[in-house]
């Protein structure tokens, strides 16, 4: 039974909150129970940002992850240090290997190293590194239909930014491909 508890973390400006919201929206659109909980504080661009996302078949009791994440998506090194210990044994870690050289030292979790920034850069837009990572996450965990996530993005972009859908779709596919090579 689906009961995803995902921590998404990085620095402000990497689109972490948006990643979480897209997963949440996609889950809701698939008629799953969902919640999105941001960390908030006296934060600023470049500071830390993280959010907890729940996607479940059952109503969500506590929306907070406390040492029971099924997946962690870490977009920078401080996030990896802080949140990898929160993942349950048998869970997944998704590491943005463009910004993190270190390896995850736990052997009871499955780790995927996705060079998000490089892939985004090759596609010509650094801002889509987050979509690369979401592609990898969905490919591995199969917790959501990829189209649901892309539809959620389309909704978020709206009419004015609809032209960005193509490159985001590409980024998502590239991320999935990078993950597939490591499965």
């Amino acid at each position, binding site marked *: 039974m689906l009961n995803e508890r995902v921590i998404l973390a990085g620095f402000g400006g990497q689109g972490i909150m948006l990643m979480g*919201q897209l997963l*949440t*929206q996609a889950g*809701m659109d698939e008629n799953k129970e*969902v*919640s*999105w*909980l*941001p960390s*908030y*504080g*006296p934060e600023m661009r470049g500071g830390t940002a993280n959010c907890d996302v729940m996607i479940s078949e059952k109503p*969500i*009791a*506590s*929306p*907070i992850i*406390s*040492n029971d994440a099924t997946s962690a998506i870490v977009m920078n090194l401080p996030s990896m240090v802080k949140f990898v210990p929160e993942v349950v044994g048998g869970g997944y870690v998704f590491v943005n290997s463009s910004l993190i050289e270190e390896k995850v030292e736990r052997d009871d979790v499955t780790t995927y190293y996705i060079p998000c920034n490089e892939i985004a850069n090759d596609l010509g837009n650094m801002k889509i590194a987050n979509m690369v990572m979401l592609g990898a996450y969905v490919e591995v965990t199969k917790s959501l239909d990829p189209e649901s996530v892309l539809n959620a993005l389309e909704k978020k972009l709206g009419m004015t930014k609809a032209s960005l859908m193509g490159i985001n779709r590409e980024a998502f596919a590239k991320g999935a491909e990078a993950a597939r090579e490591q499965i």
Partner: protein
Amino acid sequence: MSKVLMKGNEAIGAAAIAAGCKYFFGYPITPQSELPEYMSAHLPRVGGVYLQAESEVAAINMVYGAAGTGKRVMTSSSSPGIALKQEGISYIAGAELPCVIVNIVRGGPGLGSIQPAQSDYNQSTRGGGDGDYRLLVYAPGSIQEMVDLVQIAFDKADYYRNPVMVLGDGMMGQMMEPVEFKDDLPKMELPEKDWATTGTKGQRKPNVINSLYLAAEELEQHNIRLQKKYDEMKQNEVRYEEYQIEDAELVIAAYGTTARIAKAAVDQLREAGIKVGLFRPITVWPYPYDVVKNLPESVKHILCVEMSMGQMIDDVRIGNEGQRPVHFVGRSGGMIPTPQLVVDKVNEILNGGK
């Protein structure tokens, strides 16, 4: 209507506007600022007014004035901001005017922190202002429930001519959940607002809105009348949820965010075969004392869980009437209790610990 994914603070704003709220006066403070932000964007579109006051004290007195005209009005703030509003809240209650006040609680005392807390329980249920007054206080446990209760709150405020408070916390304000704006919420039959100061047009005697009664006899009569109103609320407005109580050996009492965490703990403990239930007050004033008083025979312990050093526990003790030991576990200052903390405490109690 279909579901939409919304942040708690924004959902409160949307719910208030759906309930016919036309006026909002406030002053920004984390973690509720998305609510005034939402109102500033959306109230003008429905012919309403959003005004950022120069202070919380000014904002609540603007609410006082607007409420006097009989229009639906709201203010929101977080803990120290609500503390500043207490004088105005007492005046509004004394003058018997309807309004809705939202408190998205953060850690205290003083300026405290900006993280979630439940340490304004006493301030909300005992009244931080002067005099014998009460607020109807809703403590929703999800964003959907918050949206429903905000809409109901406006009706109740009009019906009782009394301020109604919606008590959330930083987590409720900041998190996103799917919400549905229902058009089938129970609507109340509301009397005409013939007390409002809308201009006599030479047709009637002026209405006077006031909370000053210099004659002691008159003020006592006023207080007796207010008390009757509060008694009616105690009779008719109590709301709560019971979860897995029937055969429970231990019942957890918790509200709002903490109740969600406690519910996760209950599920975890039930899976391990431990008989635990949850009692969740939805109105924290009037308090569901009878539920605590009449818990099933099987219940040997009550555990109160709060994001404070223990405030609601006093109400649990009042309801309990000394029948069972009442235990406490909580975090404060912006720290959030984990389900594990609750599980450990339950095990400690049931295994004969302190």
